[in-house]
């Protein structure tokens, strides 16, 4: 069974990243997507899981410093090799989940307009 501890480490940053990238995604859907990311992280190959676990701790530390919004904006665009893979991994998994599950989601994460 995948370890749950490595999974739970990614959830604060994943939640913050999705809140910024998809601001209109309702909390329930965001929670589902974050949970999906966490489950996939828990199932990563052992060396990747170790690396992601370390990055999660570092990225989480940043969340407690100053403006969360600014931090997410900067940290998700860091051009640093390997480090930049972390937000990319989270975003990829979450976006794939959101648009597979709800294909007509708007670009801001909002639900598709229902025709009257």
């Amino acid at each position, binding site marked *: 069974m995948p370890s749950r501890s490595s999974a739970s480490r990614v959830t604060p940053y994943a939640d913050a990243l999705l809140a910024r990238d998809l601001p209109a995604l309702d909390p329930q859907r965001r929670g589902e997507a974050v949970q999906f990311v966490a489950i996939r992280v828990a199932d990563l*190959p052992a060396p*990747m899981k170790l690396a992601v676990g370390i990055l999660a701790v570092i990225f989480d530390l940043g969340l407690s410093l100053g403006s969360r919004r600014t931090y997410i904006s900067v940290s998700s665009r860091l051009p640093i090799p390997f480090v930049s893979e972390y937000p990319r991994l989270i975003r990829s998994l979450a976006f794939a989940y*959101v648009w597979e599950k709800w294909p007509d989601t708007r670009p801001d994460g909002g639900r598709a307009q229902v025709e009257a």
Partner: protein
Amino acid sequence: MNLSKDAFGAGDHIEVEVLIIGSGAGGSPTAALLAEAGFDVLIVEEGEWYDQGSIKPFSLDQMEKQYRSGGVTVALGRPSIAYTEGRCAGGGTEVNSGLYKRPPHSMLTKWRDGYQIQNLELDDIDAIADEIETDLSVSYVPGESTLASQALARGATNLGWRNGEIPRWMSYPERGDALSGKRQSMTETYLPRAINAGAILSTGVRVERLEMIDATAGAAIVERRDGRAGRISFRHVFVCCGAIHTPALLQRSGIKGNIGKSLAVHPTVKLSAKFSEVINVDNDVPVHQVTEFFPHSSFGGSASQAGLLALALNDNWRAFRGQITDWRRMSVYYAAITSEGRGRVISVPGMRDPVVTYRLTKNDRTLLAISLGRLALAMLAAGAEAVYPSFRGAPVVRRPADVARLEAGFSATKASVMSVHLCSTVPMGEDPRLCGADSFGRVHGTTNVRVNDASLLPSAPGVNPQATVMALVVRNVRRFIEENVHA
């Protein structure tokens, strides 16, 4: 129908004549031919059995159930290269696009001469390919291909580039269409054949290591689905776990030599093309490929459900995100290159999975940029309104003049580079400086350990490799049967 069974029962030790580890394009034909020749065969597979058609193709559900690590596996490097491996009965054949391309003669000749592969006769390989094509019902789509596939062909044709439909291992119902095929994967073909001939398939069994006494392997130590350990004694073993896990297992077993040092892949970059009409069809994989630039690169189409399109747009999300609402008018295409680079598979003591690395060369990086530019050009020539390349900071390409900006702005480190074709980690041949196994797959320095999967290919073939893998696998196992006349 699930044909697997628990070979252990209540015990924890089994004795067999031939153990085959892995049930993909390597393991399944190996098992079928050996069982039909009268050998006592056990196939162990780490994943589980899923009937073809029981899982939505290219979905996250499929990723979770039939791919290793949910499809999230990476070769470290600059850039890291995402790759996927099947982990289920039938292996990668259950989940791949099913495109079939015969082994190119030029490649076979190059391998034979460069790696000193004995008795690699082109006529023999062609004859085996004929058999495989019959066994797998290799065929073209009935009627017209899907719009996304036609678009690629149209774009290439308009530019005067060679292109064509690639057949697939699919069977189609009478009066069926391009989307009505059933994949003739291993669970539909060679695995039932093996089991009908007396082989046993046991799923949910992971081999931790082989027990070696000097140069001979005597048993496999395994972990079963419920976490219990087991031991399988054998006379012969075929390791068919794919190009990552075959060398990892050999390394964990203490086997040295050229094992895991020469991973080859087809690095692939992508773009999304938007058309004026609806082009995106669920479960579609375009069957056309552009071969104008073979062997350096080839272009094709990918599955393009909304989730996969979001993935393709995500590298430049802030600029491209508005396009996701038009996903029905969009499709994802790829450019794959024949890389000069190589990677490694390194088994680390105490870690369940190996570390995988890959290094692109400078030429590879240049070729990726050029190939992505050419692909964009083909999509414009096909009538695309706009093209959205998958790399950070990519420009929108709306006219041919924009392609120069794409190529200038491209950097492999900014791109989502991926590959589904992994090979060459135990290359075959007699040259011990280059090869991990002999001309028929026996691992150098061992008496009874054989590899029979994509690991044996001396280099990436530049085409979808499954046909090449299967042809070499059948050749090798026939040689084994000749040499080990069964009492």
